[in-house]
């Protein structure tokens, strides 16, 4: 036997080389040999994967409809990154009970989804999509930055991969927020309206649900405590808003309920569109 390895530019990561694909990224082998997620870690992976997948699906609807060609490309690229994150996270979630990423994406009914309401907010006009992107990417950036140090090697590897991409998404959202808020009277009016409409759904992202408490007990360091991400998020938003004269709306947070399977009214329609092909033609490939 001979083994030849590529020489990387960096020192090795704390977890060394984490093989995800062989046991986790391969649909046929999900739940097979190797590291399988516990029920609670799988549920946590589902939270993050469901956020990413629903946002990806929504952004895909902008392609050919964005304000300019470059935006078609940008939103398509962001959607593709998010789809990649979702696939890794859903595959890992599926190792608990042997479901594949496709089982989880296409054959779960609405109450079984764990997407936070922010990600379910409709695309609206371009300003609404940007306001949602700003909140989502700033949240995911703080989340994956912290999750890189997870005691769960698979979550840490997915986070380390994802955070570099989410940084682009955040940059994109910040630039558009500044441009719309500092642009014409009309663009500013729309941006203010969008932030007002989207912001009640920010609070849910930072709630420490019972799952987080259980994980803190049973798998210390595996998950990131959502409430711990709030100050980093608020700091970035404050800096961006100060730059363009926007204010955080003084509105009560939505009760939301995505982590418990209670969803925004648009969610059912979104799932119907996303799942119809796989359900009407099981096993279809093209």
């Amino acid at each position, binding site marked *: 036997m001979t083994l*030849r390895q590529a020489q*990387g530019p960096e020192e090795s*990561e704390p977890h060394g080389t984490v093989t995800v694909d062989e046991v986790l990224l391969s649909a046929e082998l999900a739940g097979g040999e190797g590291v399988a997620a516990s029920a609670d870690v799988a549920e946590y992976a589902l939270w993050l994967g469901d956020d990413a997948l629903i946002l990806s699906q929504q952004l895909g609807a902008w392609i050919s409809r964005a304000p300019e060609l470059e935006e078609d490309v*940008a939103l398509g690229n962001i959607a593709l990154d998010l*789809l990649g994150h979702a696939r890794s996270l859903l595959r890992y979630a599926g190792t608990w009970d042997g479901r594949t990423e496709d089982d989880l994406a296409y054959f779960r009914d609405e109450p079984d989804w764990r997407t936070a309401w922010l990600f379910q907010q409709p695309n609206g006009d371009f300003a609404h999509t940007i306001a949602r992107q700003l909140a989502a990417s700033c949240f995911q950036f703080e989340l994956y930055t912290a999750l890189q140090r997870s005691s769960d090697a698979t979550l840490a590897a997915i986070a380390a991969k994802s955070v570099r991409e989410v940084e682009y998404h955040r940059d*994109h959202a910040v630039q558009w927020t500044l441009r719309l808020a500092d642009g014409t009277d009309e663009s500013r009016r729309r941006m203010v309206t969008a932030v007002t409409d989207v912001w009640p759904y920010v609070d849910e992202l930072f709630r420490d649900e019972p799952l987080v408490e259980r994980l803190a007990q049973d798998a210390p360091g595996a998950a990131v405590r959502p409430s711990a991400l709030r100050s980093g998020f608020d700091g970035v938003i404050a800096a961006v808003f100060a730059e363009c004269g926007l204010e955080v709306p003084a509105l009560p947070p939505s009760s939301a309920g995505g982590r418990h399977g209670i969803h925004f009214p648009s969610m059912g329609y979104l799932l119907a569109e996303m799942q119809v092909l796989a359900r009407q033609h099981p096993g279809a490939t093209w």
Partner: protein
Amino acid sequence: MVSGATAWDIAASVHDPEIPVLSIADLGVLRDVRDDGDAVTVTITPTYSGCPAMDTIRDDLVLALTAAGFARVDVRTVLAPAWTTDWITPHGREALAAFGIAPPGPVTARSGPIPLRLSVKCPRCGSLDTRELARFGSTSCKALYQCRSCDEPFDHFKAH
């Protein structure tokens, strides 16, 4: 059994389907190759999470190694350590520039939400007077630039 070229050389001959001047070894996505006689195990890593080229690269690896006589080819994907553009070899950078894609500079540590970047050299005329038209380009790994000296638009493999 396989004779002649090593399994690594055969795997390294597979090229990125979207940037055909780059072999997967030059791109830095080929992590290791284990030759067990009749069987070979190739480990690759994705550039970007959703990169659709990975499926094609996987298929091309299986085809190339099967054609070379290996009875069993396993292609595995690892995520850590995460790929960065620093994994692209010097030869790969030259190939990119010759192909008209400005190669990435070194990956710099970023500290704030507004990153600072070095100017990108135009692959056609060599000018440093260039501007970013769009940070998201024709593939996940590229941004669209334009040269102010020769006016030509060009792709830049962004430092990542």
